[in-house]
């Protein structure tokens, strides 16, 4: 594998016996012991994730707020200092370049956290839309990142930092030290659990990782690989770029109206308005499968009579949900094809499996506000 990158925690993963896979250009742990065991640890106690592969883009300058707003579905001037917001970059056609997090320090300083697989594309896209007096810095090499998630995350972290993380609000961040290492700590995550994402310097990552594992041991903390990261996010129906979002899908179709503020001008806005005007053609639905066979990304989703069902869309994500104990799918389908309670059919490895359309998310996130409505 040429040019596959490693995070600063690579040796720690190997030492812990992780199975390593290539993901988004990085060698990452998919699991340490068992995806289900790791998943359950995060739901009931805590999980620790290496997410150092995530990309960071710094935007600074007098026009930073105006610029970030112009390239984002969300108006950055609506954010308070030290607030985090989930948003998207859109193509002029209204489809998704990437989903990302805006960290606002002030109206002149922002950190954008993007998907690893999209980092180069995003950086080029952001730079390509440069507006006014701003400095754009591709800064991913400056940051390592670990995520501490789960009901015990707060208990574990509060003993490691002088900051009042108990009082830190959902989607807020602060600059502090953890284990006496300088960090940015945000109350955010991708699991549906309460928890934190901690950004540090790459040279501090090994220390922080091991200190957190040690501090968490009495609470039942386990290191979690990408496998559990995916099942955890899937149960609460958080979007995964490349599966549930891509350059053919608009946020109106993916059920993400909540990340659009309509009172500001942004790239892709006119296309979204036009789509609203003529009617949003597709919607993103949840399906509970009748059997435990697992629908995978790209499989057809059918509806109608069981004898001759017709294609209404496709599976964007599918998996077994360890907490719920069943297989589920997320599907992008024609807007009026089905409603909650209807039966859909998904051919899985030559056999047609039936499922029922259910409400998203499959389980309510415990962290902060509801992402979906």
């Amino acid at each position, binding site marked *: 594998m040429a040019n596959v990158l490693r995070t600063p925690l690579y040796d720690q993963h190997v030492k812990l016996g992780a199975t390593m896979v290539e993901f988004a250009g990085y060698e990452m742990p998919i699991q340490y012991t068992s*995806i289900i065991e790791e998943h359950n640890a995060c739901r009931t106690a805590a999980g620790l994730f290496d997410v150092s592969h995530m990309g960071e883009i710094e935007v600074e300058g007098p026009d930073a707020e105006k610029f970030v707003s112009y390239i984002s579905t969300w108006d950055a001037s609506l954010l308070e200092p030290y607030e985090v917001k989930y948003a998207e970059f859109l193509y002029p056609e209204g489809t998704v370049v990437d989903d990302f997090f805006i960290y606002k320090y002030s109206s002149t300083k922002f950190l954008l956290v993007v998907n690893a697989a999209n980092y180069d594309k995003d950086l080029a896209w952001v730079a390509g839309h440069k507006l006014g007096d701003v400095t754009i810095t591709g800064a991913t090499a400056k940051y390592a990142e670990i995520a501490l998630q789960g009901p015990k995350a707060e208990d574990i972290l509060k003993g490691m930092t002088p900051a009042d993380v108990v009082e830190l609000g959902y989607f807020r961040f602060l600059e502090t030290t953890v284990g006496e290492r300088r960090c940015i700590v945000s109350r955010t995550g991708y699991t549906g659990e309460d928890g934190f994402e901690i950004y540090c310097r790459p040279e501090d990552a090994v220390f922080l990782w091991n200190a957190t594992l040690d501090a968490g041991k009495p609470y039942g903390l386990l290191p979690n690989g990408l496998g559990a990261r995916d099942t955890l996010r899937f149960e609460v129906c958080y979007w995964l770029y490349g599966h549930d979002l891509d350059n053919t899908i608009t946020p109106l179709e993916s059920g993400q109206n909540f990340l659009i503020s309509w009172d500001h001008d942004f790239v892709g806005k006119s296309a979204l308005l036009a789509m609203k005007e003529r009617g949003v053609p597709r919607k993103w639905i949840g399906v509970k499968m009748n059997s435990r066979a*697992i629908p995978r990304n790209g499989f057809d989703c059918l509806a109608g009579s069981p004898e001759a069902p017709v294609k209404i869309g496709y599976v964007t994500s599918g998996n*077994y949900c*360890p907490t719920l104990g069943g297989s589920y799918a997320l599907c992008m389908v024609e807007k009026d094809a089905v409603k909650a309670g209807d039966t859909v059919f998904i051919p899985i490895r030559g056999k047609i499996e039936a499922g029922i359309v259910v409400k998203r998310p499959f389980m309510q996130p415990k962290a902060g506000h509801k992402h979906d409505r």
Partner: protein
Amino acid sequence: MKIQEDARYAKSDEWARAEGGVATVGVSDYAQQKLGDVVFVGEISVGATVKAGEILTSVESVKAASDIYSPVSGKVVAVNHEVIAKPELINADPYGAGWLAKIELSAPEELNTLMSAPDYAEYRKE
């Protein structure tokens, strides 16, 4: 990696243990580790005829779907319904409660083409 001494092994990591013309088959400990948490076992039909090296069924783990090949040829005379209801038995006890099917051997000599336990241990030595 656990190896069952009295079983014989296919290169695709299934095992067979023959007794009186009927072989019990399953997947090896090495295979269950590679599969990860198994959450689904596809149907296997009693009475079906299977050939060595052909697909017996498929299993799904959280990671991926995988075909399971029959290590022997013959007729399926029993299916482990418990493992279909509780696929995690494959991870917990691949040589015991996690067995998949019993196959009446149509070509018992095929067993000689499978690996012995020591040979399989060597084959899957990390």
